């Protein structure tokens, strides 16, 4: 053992390093490609993730040469508006970390404040610990993490939960990766009041909103996954729908698109029923027509504003 270590450190500075072979061995490129294919837009996020993957890969190589021994801090913070793909990216991140050997199981445990914070004294610690134990070997994803800290109520148990999380984030770095997610402004406030949390998080990733074109591409991808498609008139109608919906309140990016498509499918089913005398074929079942979309109340409301 000690002999092996010696030869490692005695390797001369010009020992060749095969980064490409290492990349292929980890199969991580596959996940990154899948991320690129299945997630539309999100350029800065994708760049950031491949940067993190590259860093970890190099770190793994350095470990082979005994240049570093500590596990790097991997805890992350995803900020962005609702429906920008934070949860999806987190589950991909779990897979990337698993392939690189930084998460033994590579599963994602997604929780919110309710799963961590208890309702009475002495309830919070066991509850938080239980979740942490479930997430070990994988990634703990805390959605809307800023709810953990409620400064207006000093008897709130959220702080206790944060304390336990901090301890585990520091001591069990090999076992658990924590990803926090939430709106940018509220997360900033959360970090300002919890400086310990900020210093333990290495990567802050910001998720931008989608543009209308990207949302249309997402809609087409979603439909394809469910074996539907737009007719050309339907696609045009949906392209008109998106900017109108973006102007309305409670717009949640890809999530709103998914809901809109669900409603369009409902109308399509209704239309097919109403046209009962007519013989239907397979293409009727999979096509979303313009009339399934223009009937949306968004067209009425969006025009008024």
């Amino acid at each position, binding site marked *: 053992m000690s002999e092996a270590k010696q030869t490692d450190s005695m390797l001369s500075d010009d020992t060749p390093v095969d980064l490409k072979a290492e990349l292929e061995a980890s199969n991580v490129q596959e996940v990154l490609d899948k991320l690129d294919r299945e997630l539309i837009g999100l350029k800065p996020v994708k760049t950031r993730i491949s940067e993190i993957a590259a860093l970890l890969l190099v770190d793994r190589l350095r470990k082979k040469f005994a240049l570093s021994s500590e596990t790097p801090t991997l805890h992350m913070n995803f900020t962005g508006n609702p429906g920008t793909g934070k949860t999806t990216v987190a589950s991909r991140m779990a897979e990337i970390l698993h392939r690189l050997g930084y998460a033994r*199981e590579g599963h994602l445990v997604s929780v919110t404040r309710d799963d961590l914070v208890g309702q009475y004294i002495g309830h919070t610690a066991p509850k938080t610990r*239980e979740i*942490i134990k479930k997430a070990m070997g994988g990634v703990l994803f805390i959605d809307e993490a800023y709810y953990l800290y409620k400064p207006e109520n000093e008897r709130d148990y959220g702080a206790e939960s944060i304390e336990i999380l901090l301890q585990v984030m520091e001591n069990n770095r090999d076992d658990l990766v924590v990803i926090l997610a939430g709106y940018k402004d509220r997360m900033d406030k959360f970090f300002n009041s919890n400086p310990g949390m900020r210093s333990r998080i290495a990567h802050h990733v910001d998720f931008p909103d989608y543009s209308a074109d990207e949302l249309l591409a997402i809609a087409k991808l979603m439909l394809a996954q469910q074996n539907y498609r737009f007719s050309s008139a339907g696609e045009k109608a949906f392209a008109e729908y998106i900017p109108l919906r973006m102007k309305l309140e409670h717009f949640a990016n890809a999530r709103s698109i998914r809901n809109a498509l669900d409603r369009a499918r409902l109308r399509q089913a209704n239309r097919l029923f109403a046209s009962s005398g007519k013989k239907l074929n397979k293409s009727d079942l999979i096509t979303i027509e313009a009339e399934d979309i223009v009937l949306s109340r968004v067209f009425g409301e969006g025009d008024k504003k």
Partner: protein
Amino acid sequence: MMTNPGNRLTQGQFSFLPDLTDEQISAQIKYALKNGWAVSVEYTDDPHPRNTYWEMFGMPMFDLKDPAGIMMEINSCRKTFPNHYIRVTAFNSIRGVESPTMSYLVNRPKIEPGFGLSRQEGSGRSVHYTIHSYATDKPEGERY
């Protein structure tokens, strides 16, 4: 006659072997988790083989994927009760089994005084035998 040098308690799995290392314990837990068994940590200072009522250290742990969480619990139990017997039990909830399928010691007191054999004269010339742990002469909590 000394058949059990060191008076080491032998119950559950692996108890005739040298104590398991943490890596070995973790590998055994991994096996249990792979089979979908719920693992729990228990402790006692009454080592009689018929003592089935060990105290639970926290709740049984369901839906875990990785042994690290259970190792954390074992270590905190060792810290709280360094001189107790601690065992890890895996519970199989499959219908028809519904019972512990693994159980092994992960911690024992530094000094184990062992068991004495006591004889009782019965009616006629019969003799009843029983074993008695020397440790249980003292009250609970002061035994080791």
